[in-house]
């Protein structure tokens, strides 16, 4: 006889809870009618992008201007995105992978060529140097349109690190044990170790890779956590002294915590580009191109730059930046000719993927 009240209560709570939350959800439903109207006009476009990698206002503006409804989904790393697209059970129209992953997708016949007549803003606004850089993974610039680019470097807290930071080797300094945040993605983590050893970050040499793996294992006791985007929150909160981070996050974190500083280590680093691509099985290619074109408009690219603070390859948008300091910031728009040993990731084939994954697992499980 004791349990009956529990159930009666739960039922009551449930009924009332449903009413209330239904009301709550109802508040969000103007969207439901809005989408129906949007769908009637121009159909939809399914976008698969990095987490927090766009100003949500621009999506609304796109919907308003074109009548195309945006279905938006997010991924965390290239490696998480790829199997979802490859499996084909999730169909996307526009995806924003990085350089080496675009190469992999081209190699595995997952992408379709873009019709640049439908994307006039791309060639008009995006700087020549970025197209040139894209040639490395997309020969002939047939499949991709650059969206953001940047470097990978060390973000450090000036109050916790006294000596000048200019080398990856500081991430192996025992003084900073438990104060180091490493990247939790295979290629980025190995890039750091390979560069420190003076190797190419696209190395396929088993000895070089084994050396890099051992270096990472040696570093593990000093590492506070392997994180991806959480570096941002943790560095702002003074949780760690040093973190490996994408240059785009540097401006954001500095705004929140002025003690932080970003450097590109002297051993060289990864210069990456994230570009819009359209997969082969995209249900709405026309809308996808409309979307890419919209994102290449200078005013829209500017909004996105200001929101996500990742460097834009859109020269026309850069011209529009009002804050001179940001416009000429060496973090957002570094002069790459100053740095040695800059590289871009290449796709290393299934074999390379397997080799890296295997070694990474050995690091992580050690």
């Amino acid at each position, binding site marked *: 006889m004791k349990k009956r009240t529990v159930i009666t209560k739960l039922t009551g*709570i449930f009924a009332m*809870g449903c009413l209330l939350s239904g009301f709550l959800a109802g*508040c*969000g439903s103007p969207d439901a009618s809005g989408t129906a109207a949007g769908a009637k006009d121009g159909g939809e476009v399914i976008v698969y992008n990095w987490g927090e990698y766009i100003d949500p206002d621009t999506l609304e503006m796109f919907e308003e201007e074109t009548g195309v409804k945006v279905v938006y989904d997010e991924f965390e790393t290239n490696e998480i995105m790829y199997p979802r697209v490859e499996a084909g*059970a999730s169909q996307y129209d526009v995806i924003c992978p990085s350089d080496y992953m675009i190469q992999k997708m081209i190699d595995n016949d997952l992408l379709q060529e873009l019709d640049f007549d439908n994307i006039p803003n791309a060639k008009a606004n995006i700087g020549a140097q970025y197209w040139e850089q894209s040639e490395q993974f997309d020969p002939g610039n047939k499949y991709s349109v650059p969206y953001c680019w940047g470097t990978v470097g060390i973000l450090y807290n000036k109050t916790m690190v006294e000596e000048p930071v200019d080398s990856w080797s500081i991430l192996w300094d025992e003084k900073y044990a438990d104060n180091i945040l490493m990247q939790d993605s295979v290629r980025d983590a190995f890039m750091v170790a390979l560069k420190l050893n003076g190797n190419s970050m696209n190395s396929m040499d088993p000895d070089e890779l084994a050396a890099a793996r051992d270096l990472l294992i040696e570093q593990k006791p000093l590492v506070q956590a392997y994180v991806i985007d959480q570096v941002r929150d943790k560095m*702002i*909160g003074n949780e760690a002294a040093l973190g490996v981070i994408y240059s785009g996050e540097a401006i954001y974190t500095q705004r929140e915590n002025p003690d932080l500083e970003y450097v590109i280590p002297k051993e060289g680093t990864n210069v990456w580009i994230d570009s819009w691509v359209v997969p082969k099985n995209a249900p709405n290619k026309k809308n996808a191109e409309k979307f890419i074109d919209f994102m290449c408009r200078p005013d829209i690219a500017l909004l996105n730059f200001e929101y996500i603070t990742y460097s834009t390859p859109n020269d026309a948008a850069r011209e529009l930046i009002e804050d001179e300091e940001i416009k000429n910031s060496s973090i957002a728009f570094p002069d790459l000719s100053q740095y040695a040993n800059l590289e871009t990731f290449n796709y290393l084939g299934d074999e390379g993927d397997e080799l890296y994954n295997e070694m990474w697992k050995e690091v992580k499980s050690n």
Partner: protein
Amino acid sequence: MIKKSAEKIYIALIVLFMYAPIVTLMVLSFNNSKTRAKWGGFTFKWYVELFDNQAILQALSNTLAIALLSAVAATVIGTVATLSIAGMKRRSRAVFMSVTNIPMLNAEIVTGISLMLLFISFGVRFGFGTILLSHITFNIPYVILSVMPRAKQLNPSVYEAALDLGASRTQAFFRVVFPDLLPGILSGFLMAFTMSLDDFIITHFTKGPGVDTLSTKIYTEVKKGIKPEMYALSTLIFVTVLILLLLVNYRPKPQDASIPGAERTKK
């Protein structure tokens, strides 16, 4: 006396342990700073912004819709299944019950992955439908296990008496048997609803583009830092449930029969 206060202290400590993170989340919902790492002063603005945040509200309505639909479907399928299993011979009953137990006892990650493989192999497009099917699947066992004890306690002679007195099978069932099953059915439904509401892992593997539940939304946000609106929403949900609980608790208690199986929860 000492024993009583020791007991009280013990309960208090465990309550503290259980509620410390919840209080933390509530405090964060009033934090006037975008990151959880910094206290930026007191504000109500996230509660205002919550109602403008289409993505979160959409996730909320998805979550509720999936929980409600899957719980209803699981309750219907599960109840019918229970009655049929109860009418089986011992051996086939054992087989059916073992199959029923699989989704409950198996690791959620394995269930999620197996459903993902199924949908991919049969070329089903991931989306709202695949999440719903998966949720129904893992909800059915909770319903069966809640209704089964009731079904076993049924007295067949009552049903037969009803038939003898001229009731049709349908009448006899709905007038005589069903009321006896109802408490079990209700608790199974509730259990299914709660499980579906709280599920992350299985949804994670079977969700499609643009369809997020609160859990998957939060998991994506974890990486970049949870949006404070999410704290505000959770606080609202929690406070609502708490207030309802208090209201119901201090209301005269209605009578109904005890419900075995109500306690059967599993993550």
